[in-house]
């Protein structure tokens, strides 16, 4: 397959007792962008450093463009891998100006790159005179100048302001696409990951929990961690018995496509729950604990009577204030995802 650019086979790396990267196997197609998202300390930066060659794996195999760059008895030096890397803090050479930084490896095309990243007029500025966003643009141009086959981006936007982040994200994505660079983009921000990546990999404790396109991962989380961390879904305790789905919130008789019974954790997205304030305390089953305005919608944190906490996203003309007793309702959709003893299961609801 000549469309395959990066291939990792059973890559592992430990530091002392910590398994930073634990048996990871990955394939990335030429020209596509993979976002790796996970909490800090999950091993995503280590994974990039292994591919770049700053660290050596304990075992496994690394290939770029079909030829090995690391295996048990071969390690290609960093300098020869033809990989570019952009670090969180830019890591510009502080004693060189913008033009010298971009032309560090290859001094041709500097002008067109300056134009590409929108820094014409800043040629002779020193790194410390640039804003954080400008520094990252220089870092991008500097990497592209060397015409790398693969670009690794290690949380490149996390030091920037939120407004600039949005802007630079779309810009960088379109630049990467126009250069047809294969890229791995690491972040701890799920939204950033979805916006940047053609594919998304959820990483936890050195291993990949799930990989797929963003919509797929969002709708169909394969693990409880992915459901919570990436889809930001509620995991609500429930029992299914004789086609009756019982949760603390509701009890519904369902006609489902398979024979399932027992305790489960139901994946319920915040917009699948509905709350209304109630004055009659007999009708209430939860209390608003927090309320955040999010443009079109309000994001509510609700404490249920059994102390479970759930998140609800809904639009209200009048927001429901904290400490208001509410009645919360749940109507299962066409397809329900749940976890039984850690294993993901799905069933369809016939309506």
């Amino acid at each position, binding site marked *: 397959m000549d469309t395959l650019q990066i291939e990792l086979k059973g890559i592992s790396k430990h*530091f002392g007792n910590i398994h930073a990267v634990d048996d990871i196997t990955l394939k990335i197609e030429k020209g596509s962008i993979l976002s790796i998202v996970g909490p800090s300390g999950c091993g995503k930066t280590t994974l990039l450093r292994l591919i770049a060659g700053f660290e050596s794996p304990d075992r496994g195999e690394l290939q770029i463009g079909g030829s090995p760059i690391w295996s048990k008895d071969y390690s290609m030096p*960093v300098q020869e891998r033809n990989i570019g890397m952009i670090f969180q*803090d830019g890591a510009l050479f502080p004693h060189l100006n913008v033009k010298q930084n971009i032309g560090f490896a290859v001094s041709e095309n500097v002008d067109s790159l300056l134009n590409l990243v929108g820094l014409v007029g800043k040629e002779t500025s020193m790194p410390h005179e640039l804003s954080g966003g400008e520094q990252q643009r220089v870092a991008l141009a500097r990497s592209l100048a060397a015409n790398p086959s693969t670009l690794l981006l290690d949380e490149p936007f996390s030091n920037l302001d939120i407004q600039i982040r949005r802007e630079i994200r779309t810009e960088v994505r379109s630049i990467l696409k126009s250069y047809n660079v294969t890229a791995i983009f690491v972040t701890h921000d799920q939204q950033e990951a979805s916006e940047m990546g053609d594919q998304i990999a959820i990483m936890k404790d050195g291993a990949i929990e799930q990989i797929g396109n963003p919509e797929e991962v969002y709708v169909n989380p394969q693990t409880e961690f992915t459901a919570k961390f990436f889809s930001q879904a509620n995991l609500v305790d429930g029992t299914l018995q004789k086609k009756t789905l019982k949760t603390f919130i509701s009890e519904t008789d369902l006609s489902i496509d398979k024979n399932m019974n027992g305790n489960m954790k139901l994946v319920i997205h915040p917009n699948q729950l509905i709350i209304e304030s109630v004055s009659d305390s007999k009708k209430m089953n939860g209390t608003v604990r927090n309320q955040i305005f999010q443009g079109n919608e309000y994001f509510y944190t609700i404490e249920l009577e059994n102390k479970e906490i759930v998140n609800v996203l809904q639009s209200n003309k009048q927001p429901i204030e904290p400490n208001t007793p509410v009645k919360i309702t749940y109507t299962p959709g066409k397809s329900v995802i749940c976890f039984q003893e850690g294993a993901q299961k799905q069933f369809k609801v016939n309506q």
Partner: protein
Amino acid sequence: MRNDVSIKTPRMLLIPAASVVFLSLLPIAYLVIRGISSFSDLIPLLLRIQVLFIMLKTAALVIAVCFSCIVIALISCWIITRTDLKLKSLWSALMPLPLVIPSYVGAFIVIIILGPKGVLQKALEPLGVSRLPDIHGFEGAWLTLTFLCYPYIFLTLKSAMEKIDPALQEIAQSNGYSYWKYFYKIELPLLRPSIISGSMLVILYTLSDFGAVSILRYQTFTWSIYLQYEAAFDRTLAAGLSLILAFIVISILYLESKTRKNIYYYRTNAKASVSKPFFRLNKLQIPVAILLGAILLIGLIIPLVFLLYLAFQGFMSNQIPTNLFALALNSLMVSSLAAMATLGAGGSIALLTAKFKTRIAVFLENTVYIGFGLPGIVVALSLVFFGANYLTILYQTIPLLIFGYSIMFMPALIGAFKSSLESINPRIEESAKILGESNLGTFRRIVLPLTSPGIVYGMSLVFLLTIKELPLTLILGPLDFGTLATALWNASEEAFFLEAAISGVFIILISIIPMFGLRKLTNESSLWTHYK
């Protein structure tokens, strides 16, 4: 971020670094081994009553200097940090300056002013005073070293006092403590580690000082070693005394490193203070300023003014050292050579310890710091013994002299170079490598330009330390070889005070050259440190 590179120490750095450390410790190790092997000869010598006197005299001076330095530093720090004294930043910049005066210059000025037929006695003559108590001996040494050393405590104490949370005082006072009860019960215990750490430096300086005690003829270890070395045919006693001194100094270095950890511990929860409860001086503004001014007058202004005045007189009366030009050239030469040699020797150690925190790297670094603490006279004597036995070709040559300077001053260079290496973000080097630059190319294009201010700074420090150095130059220098420092010392021994002053002025003039460089470079490097 975890380890940047694999944890193995690279041979390419380890071998030169270990060789440098081994070589620099060889002479002192030789001294120790010789001392142990001739233990039975040494014991009766060291048990002489004369040795006991040397110990007592040294101890008396150390204790007296230390005590008076603590008093001066405490009072001046308290005034600067706790009152509303005007021009505070100027005072706090000026107070540490006596540190730059070489001890032999200080001692020489003390003799000029307070010595027999000195300035003070001449001034008092019309009043019928024909004799002053002799300033030679304990009093002179105490006075000189006090005013040269108090800055060590001043500097450590001041930063500690500035870091004490003023809320502590407010809490204490709201609990009914008077200010002085608070100071005694709370602040002083908090300051104790800094006072101890500063005092350790004062003790080390006093123990190692040769210039002041030799000019003022007070028999501490260093001067006794020199006298024994010069006078006696058998140098066993000189070696024995050196061993004892080396042992004392290394013990103090060890204690000092322990107290420094304590300071860190004490300061961890102290935050920068927003508003400080100042003592209003009101009418006392001027008297307090006069008090600080008096300290500076004695420690800094009088020595400099007299030095310049005497040098001027010397030039006017044509009492210029005959070979002034050659002396200045010699000083310049050995100082520049020492700066280059320490870079060559210390560079690998700095690179090693900045990049690899392995056990062996830390061990090598700690070991090389022993040389910095050892008194010049001890290093000189160990090199004399070692050189006379094993390096006869090099004995009393410039290369051996430079080797001695390197042993003593390498840590200054390592410290400066290492801190500039450590300030480079490791991602910057990785960026260069991933852009295809080789390890050597990365060093040349990235590391070297970024650390050059640190390297120049370190080399300038070594240059300054060497130009002021006395006992090593005196003992290890080739026959008929002199520097400005040895010329000053010889001239003041023979009471050619005007000649001595001219050498002193030239030492200060040459010292200024690298200082200009330092200033410019620190500006540039501070620019780079703003960028993270």
